[in-house]
C-alpha cells in the first residue's frame, strides 16, 4: 500500500464519517452542521490530493465557507425561536443502515477487484490549473456554464416564490 493510498483512505474515511455524523446528529442542528463543515473541508483536501487545486480552493471557500455560514445562520435563527423540532419515533434507521451497507458492499465487491490501469490516461495540459478551467468554461463548456446560470435563476425565483406569503 502506497503512502498515497493510506492518505486517501484516511481522508476519505474521515469524510465519510463526517457525512454520517450529519445525519446521526439530526436532533442537534449545530453539531450536524459542523459535521458537514468537516465533510466539505475533507472533500477539498481530496481535490488537492488529486491535483485539482482550483477545485479544492473553491470547495473550501464556497461550501465550507459561504454556504455553511448561511446554514448556521438559519440554524441559529430557528433556535432563537426555540421551536422544538417534532420528534418522531424513528425506527427505520437500522433498515436504512442495512440498505446502505448492502449497497456499499455490492459496489465494493466489484470495485476491489477492478483493475483501472487499462482505463487510466495521462491528464491534459495544465490540468487543474485556473487557466485551463477558465479556457474550458468559456469554450467547450460554455453552454453548460450558461445553463447553470439559468439553473441559478430558477433557484432564486423559486425560493422567492416559496418564501413569499400569500401576498
Amino acid at each position: 500500500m502506497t503512502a498515497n493510498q493510506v492518505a486517501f483512505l484516511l481522508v476519505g474515511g474521515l469524510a465519510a464519517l463526517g457525512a454520517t455524523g450529519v445525519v446521526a446528529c439530526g436532533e442537534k442542528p449545530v453539531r450536524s452542521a459542523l459535521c458537514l463543515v468537516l465533510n466539505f473541508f475533507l472533500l477539498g483536501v481530496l481535490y488537492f490530493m488529486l491535483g485539482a487545486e482550483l477545485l479544492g480552493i473553491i470547495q473550501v471557500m464556497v461550501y465550507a465557507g459561504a454556504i455553511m455560514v448561511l446554514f448556521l445562520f438559519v440554524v441559529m435563527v430557528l433556535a432563537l425561536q426555540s421551536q422544538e423540532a417534532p420528534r418522531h419515533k424513528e425506527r427505520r434507521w437500522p433498515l436504512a443502515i442495512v440498505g446502505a451497507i448492502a449497497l456499499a458492499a455490492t459496489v465494493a465487491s466489484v470495485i476491489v477487484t477492478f483493475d483501472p490501469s487499462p482505463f487510466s490516461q495521462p491528464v491534459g495540459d495544465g490540468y487543474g490549473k485556473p487557466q485551463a478551467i477558465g479556457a474550458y468554461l468559456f469554450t467547450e463548456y460554455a453552454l453548460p456554464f450558461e445553463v447553470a446560470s439559468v439553473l441559478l435563476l430558477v433557484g432564486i425565483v423559486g425560493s422567492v416564490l416559496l418564501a413569499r406569503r400569500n401576498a
Partner: protein
Amino acid sequence: MNVNALIPTVDWRALAPFTIVVCTGIVALIIEMLRPRRNNNLVVGVSLFGLLVAGWSLFGMLGGPSDESFAGMILNDRFGQILQLVMVGSCAVCFLFSEPYLREKRIPFAEFYPLALWSTAGGMLMVSSKHLLMVFLGLELLSISLYCLAGMSRYESKSEESALKYFLLGSFASAFLLMGIAFIYGETASLHLGRISEVLGAASASPLSTIGAAMVLVGLGFKLALVPFHQWTPDVYQGAPTNVTAFMAAVSKVAALGALVRFLWAIGTLDTVWFPLMWWVAVATMTVGNLAALVQNDVKRTLGYSSIAHAGYLLVGVLAAFSAPGRVSLDATAFYLISYAAMTIGAFAVISLTASGQHEGTRFYDVRGLWKRAPWAAGCLVVFLCSLIGIPITSGFFGKLLIFQAAFDAGLPALAVLLAVNSAISTYYYLGIIQAAFVTEEGAVAPRFGKPSASLNLACAVCLAGVLGAGLFAGPLIRGMGTAEVGPPVGVPVQDPLTIHTKNTSD
C-alpha cells in the same frame, strides 16, 4: 494551451428553441415584476407567443439532417425535435387552462409561467443532448422548477408537503444519477454518450460502468416513475396544484423517457445486463400502477397511478425497439408519447374545474354532476378517458396497438400479453371516473365547480383534436415524424431505416 482549438462549432439554429423558451421565461418574469397585482393576461400571452415561436423553429428544423454541435452537447435529430415539440405543445396547453385555475384557487403567483417555461427548457435539453453533463443540468433545471411549482399553493398543506416530498426524494434520485455518471466517467473518461458507447463496445467486461449504468437508471427511473421508484407519484400528483400536475405528468415524463432512450442507446452493448432488468421493471410498473389505481378514490391519485402504468407501457415500446433494432423502431413509443401527453393534460384540465373559490376537492364524489356544469369539458373528459383505456379511433388505442405490435415483433410476447391484460384492468377505474362525472344521486349535495372559462374549453378542444386527430391520421403523423430512430445500437448491422420506410409506403 491553445484556446482557439477548444472553441466548439456552434449551431445556433439547433440551440434556438431552447434559447427562445429560456428568454421568454425571462421576459415573462420582467413583465410580471413591472405589473404587480394586475391580471396576468400579458404574461400568458407573451409566454404562449414564445412557445409558438419555439415550436415554429422546431417545426422548421424537422426533416433536416441530424447533427451535433457544441462538442456533442446539442444534438439535433428527429427524435429530439419531436419530443421537444411535444413538450412545447404540452406546456402551451397547460398555460391555456392555468390562468382560470390559479384565479379560482386564489394563487397569486404569476411566477408560475416563467418557472414552467424554464422547466420545459430543462426537459428540452434532456432530450436533445448526447452529453451526460447536459442531461444532468437539464434534469435539474426541470426538477428544481417543478419542486417550487408543486408547492405553489401556499395555503394548502398538502401542496407544501408534496413539494417537500418531491424535493427530498428527487435530490436522493439525483445523487444516484450523479454517482452513476461519475462511475461511467471513471471508466470511459468521457461524458459524451457516443464516446461512451464506443468505449463500452470495445472493452470486454466493464464492471464499473455497469454499476454506473444501474445507478443512472435509478435516477432516470425516478423521474419516469418506474417501479420501484414510483412512490412519490400519487402523493405529489395529488398535492400539487392541478395545472402543475398536468404539466408534470406530460413534460417531465416525456423528458425522462427521451433521456432514458438516449442513455440505453449508449449502453446498448451491455444489454445482457440491463435488458432483463428493465424487462422486470416494465412488468412491475404496468402491474403495480394499474392494480394500485383500482382502490383509489381520488381522481388525481388515480390518474397518478395510471401515469405509472403508462410509463410501463412506454417502457415496453422502448424495450421492443432495443431488442429488435432495425426491425422495430421507436415510432410506436414516440406516437404513444404524443397521445399520452394530449390525453393526460386534457384529463387534468377537466379535473381542474373542481377548484372553486379556494376550495378544491378531487375525490370521486367531488366530481359528481360535472357534466351539468360543464357539458363540453365533461364530454371531452369521456374522450380522454376512452383514449386512456384504449378505445379505437382515439389515439390511445393506436398507441397501444403500435406498442403491442412492436413488442410482438420484437419477440417479447409476454410483455405484449401483460400490456393487453393491464389495459383491460384499467378500464375499471377509468370508467369509475366517467361514472362519477355523470351520475348525480338523489338528494346529494352538489359539489361546487368553477365556471368553465373559454380558455379551458379551448385547452380541452386542443387536447381533443390531438387525441382524435392522432388516431385518425396515425399513418401520416408517423410518416411525418419519420422513423424516430436514435440510431442503431453499436455493433448491430442495421438497414437504413429510411429505405425500409419508403418500401412500405410505396406499396
